[in-house]
Structure formats: structure tokens, C-alpha cells
């Protein structure tokens, strides 16, 4: 039985789809981790919205939960890096990645398959969180078009997290290190405008928070959803949408080639 391997972008796309299908089968086989990643942001909304929300003041006035939710959407995208990292690092630590690399398939198809699955995961996470947001009284105020544009910016952030996650996973190849990642996303999340306004922080930290890539996406989402903003002035606040496009693209431009190099480095 001989089948000549056909190569070319169409075959590679089909291979990527096959590998995306593999990830979806994992979700069916082991639903618990997926369900947890989908529900964890909901838990955070309830914690911050109701337990801490009473003590929070939105600069310039406005409802704290309206202020909080764009932050939570972006946080959910940030958490996605853990899903990507675990999947890629687990394959690399076992022999599975080697098996894929010894098959007559395009190497980028393996990464594209992963990205496809994680993109679906991100859409599911956003859908769940949007549902939760609407249930706690959050709304978009400026029309469906802008709301979709905000969703697009969120998915762009997640795409950057996919690329960075693949890069880190190929760098460390240790699935257990995800614990470190789980801890590290928190300072990144808190040193932003996701939960509170940067003006309430000490000067240097406020600057960090203003320029945090996460803040750009959050501020842009607040703008596009018509939710209360953090009222900050200055360049990052005035150019939130542009930054929300530029930051993820920059992360992809830096991490992407490094990830490809790591992937090739498996040759060594």
C-alpha cells in the first residue's frame, strides 16, 4: 500500500485541520480542564464584581461591573496562554512531536493545527464570558459593529498569546512549568487597567500599567463597547485602539520567528 505524499498548502491545511480535530477530541475525552478554563473567568467576574466591586470606584463615575468586564475579557485571553503552553510542551516532552516531525507533513501544519484549536477555545471562552457579562448587567452601547471589532481585538490578543505560548513551550519543553506561568500572568494582569485605574497606583507602576499590552486591549474594548474608561489622559489612553492592534502584532513579530527557530532547533 503506497500513498504518495502530496505536499502543498492545501494538504498542509488539511493536516492542520486533522490536528485541530485531535485537540477537539481531547476536550471530549477530558472535558474537565476545558470546562475549568472556560468557567474560571466567570468565577473572577463574580469575585471582583460582587465581593470586591463594592469597594471599587470608577474614575469619572460609572458602574464598576461595566468597567470590569472588558478587563475580564482580556484577562481570559491572557489565561489562554496556559492552554497553549501545556498542550505544546506535553507533546514536545513526549515523543509525539518527533512522530509528527517524522511524518510527511508540513511542519507549520502542526503549529497551525494547535492555533486552530486554541482559536476555537478562545471563541468559546469569549462566548461564555459574554453570556456571563450580559447576565450581570454589562452591555455594549455603541452598536454591534463596534462590539464585534472589540471581540476581534480580543482574539488578536489571544493569537499573540498562542504564538508566545508555543515559543515558551518549545523553549522549556516542560509541561509542569505551566504552574510558573499560571503565577506570572497575575502580576501582568494586575499591573494593568483591567481591575483598577492606573492613576491609583504609585507613579512608576502607573506608567507600567498604562503601557501594558493588556491595558491597550482593555482600554480599546471599553472605548468600542462604550463602557466607562479609566479616565486617564496621555498618549497610550488616547491611542488605545491603535495600541491594541500594534502590541499583539509586535509580540507576534518578535515571538513568531523565535518560535520557528525553536521548532527548527528541535533538529539539533
Amino acid at each position: 500500500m503506497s500513498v504518495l505524499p502530496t505536499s502543498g498548502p492545501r494538504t498542509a491545511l488539511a493536516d492542520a485541520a486533522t490536528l485541530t480535530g485531535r485537540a477537539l477530541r481531547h476536550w471530549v475525552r477530558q472535558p474537565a480542564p476545558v470546562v475549568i478554563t472556560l468557567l474560571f473567568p466567570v468565577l473572577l467576574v463574580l469575585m471582583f464584581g460582587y465581593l470586591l466591586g463594592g469597594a471599587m470606584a470608577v474614575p469619572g463615575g460609572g458602574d464598576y461591573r461595566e468597567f470590569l468586564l472588558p478587563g475580564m475579557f482580556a484577562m481570559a485571553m491572557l489565561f489562554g496562554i496556559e492552554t497553549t503552553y501545556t498542550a505544546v510542551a506535553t507533546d514536545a516532552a513526549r515523543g509525539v512531536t518527533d512522530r509528527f516531525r517524522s511524518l510527511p507533513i508540513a511542519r507549520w501544519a502542526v503549529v497551525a493545527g494547535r492555533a486552530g484549536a486554541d482559536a476555537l477555545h478562545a471563541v468559546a471562552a469569549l462566548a461564555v464570558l459574554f453570556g456571563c457579562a450580559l447576565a450581570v448587567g454589562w452591555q455594549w452601547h455603541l452598536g454591534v459593529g463596534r462590539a464585534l471589532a472589540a471581540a476581534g481585538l480580543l482574539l488578536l490578543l489571544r493569537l499573540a498569546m498562542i504564538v508566545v505560548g508555543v515559543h515558551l513551550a518549545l523553549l522549556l519543553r516542560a509541561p509542569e512549568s505551566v504552574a510558573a506561568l499560571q503565577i506570572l500572568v497575575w502580576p501582568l494582569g494586575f499591573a494593568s487597567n483591567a481591575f483598577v485605574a492606573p492613576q491609583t497606583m504609585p507613579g512608576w507602576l502607573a506608567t507600567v500599567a498604562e503601557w501594558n499590552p493588556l491595558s491597550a486591549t482593555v482600554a480599546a474594548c471599553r472605548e468600542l463597547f462604550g463602557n466607562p474608561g479609566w479616565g486617564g489622559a496621555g498618549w497610550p489612553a488616547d491611542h488605545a485602539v491603535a495600541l491594541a492592534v500594534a502590541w499583539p502584532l509586535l509580540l507576534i513579530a518578535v515571538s513568531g520567528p523565535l518560535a520557528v527557530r525553536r521548532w527548527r532547533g528541535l533538529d539539533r
Partner: protein
Amino acid sequence: MNVIEADGLRKRYGDTEALAGLDLTVPAGTVSAVLGPNGAGKTTLVRVLTTLTRPDAGTARVAGHDVRREPGRVRARIGLVGQATAVDEVLGGRENLVLFGRLHHLSPARARARAEELLTRFALTGAADRPVATYSGGMRRRLDLAAALILDPPVLFLDEPTTGLDPRARATVHEAVRALVAAGTTVLLTTQYLEEADRLADTVAIVDHGRVVAAGPPHRLRADLGADRVEVVCDQVADLARVADTLRAAVAGPPRVDPEALRVSVPAADRVATLATVLAALTDAGLTAADVTLRRPTLDEVFLHLTDRAQVAA
């Protein structure tokens, strides 16, 4: 025709030279065993030949294609069973085989049909829908092997296929390899076990420090290596010298004395006949022994012998 041709392969990792100018040829339709201790360069060799690792220098052709210039063509013609299990642990055996069938560009229907065939062939039908994480070591190996055989590749690489398996699982793997070779597959396997190389391989290449130090059919290598030995285990240290003297007089080849193990051994050029000679000589001299055995050389002894010879030659 040679299906595998490696010429002067070199690969360095930091200070370690994993491959130090390795040459190897494997004729079509044969089993070749690469025998060597841990760290000899066996896995690096397999990784280079299966396009997973780029050599620093040297060339290698597999199934008529250069591993560096035409890795895609090589990959289409080989199957690989690596040391680490390379199947998806979360999925079941059937799902794994269908997945790898699809990645070999079989149609969904053919991928499913092929999966069934392989599950039957490797006696995995009963466990086909259980997650691989629940499989025993032997079952995993069989599934690994099945996944490498989706397209009946003309060349199959097995990197220590039986390490860590119990004797029964090992026998199953040996059987599968024999069946493949009977059907015309060329197999290159690495092993740490002399016995395995002896049993399965048409040719054995002994590798040490990234180089082939001896190669040939197992029977010729064994003859080369001073063959089997008769070992006499003495009752007490005091007997060692007298036993050694007796054996020196009775058998060609100098006796080797290991005082710690109370052991004296001599080459058994004529095997059972030498054993009989030794027994007769001991009886004539009025000596008793705790144990007398005819034994094949261990891998350690093979290496000792080869390094000794290298030192003499140098």
C-alpha cells in the same frame, strides 16, 4: 542494493561527540542491529537517519534519498518507533491510528479500515477504545509499532524497541519484526542487548563513542570476539591458582582469573567439546568446583575485548 548508507556522520553536542565519523550500510530486506552502551550515539544515529536531527558533517541516504536534501521523500518512506512512546495518551488506540492514517493522507474511510487491520494484527482490538494512558508498556509499544506501519514503509527504524519490556512483550516485538522482514521490510534497530542483536539481526554494527568499532554477521563477530567461554566457579580462593594451571594445560587460550567472583574462564573454541575437556581435566586433577558453565560473552566483555584490541593496535 543498500537501503541505508551513512558516510562519515558527525554530530557534536557541546563537548560530547555523539557521532564521530560513523559509516554504516544496510542492504535491502535485512535486519541490522546497532549495538552499543548508553551514550554510544545510537539514538543520534537514528535521529539523523529519520531526518529529525541534522548531522554536522557526513552524508546519509535512506531509501535512495539524501536525508538533508530530501527529508520529505525520506519521511514518506520510513517508519519510526522512537524510545519515548510517540502516541497520544489521551486518545484511544483506534483514534490514534486513524489520526496517524489521516496525517499520512489516507482518506477517512481508508484510515479507519487500516486502523482496524493494524489493531487486529497487534492484538489491540479489545483495548482499542481505552485511552492509551491505561495501556501496559507492551501494549503501548505495539501501538507505537502499528502507528509506524500505517503505510507499510519500506524502511523501519526501531530505537531500543524492547528496553523496559517484560520477556513476553519482548517476544511479541521480536515476532513482529521477523514478520515485517519476511514481508520485505528493511529494519534498523538499536539495542543494548547482545542477545537481541544475535537473535534478530542479519548484521550487527557495534557502536562506541560515535563510531562503528566492529560490524558483520553475528556469528562472525562472535568468532572474532573470542567466542564463548567456559567458566569454572571455585569453592575457595585457594583453588583458583590450581584450577587456572589445570585449564592452561588442557585448553588453548589463556585462562582469565577473577578472584572476587572465584571464577576462572577460558575460551570455548569448540563449545561443548571444550566444556567436556574442562570437566575431564578438573576430574583428572582431583579438583572440585561450585559451578561449571558454557557462556556467551556479555556486551561488557565484547567492549572490553574491542577496546583491548584497539589498544594493542595503537
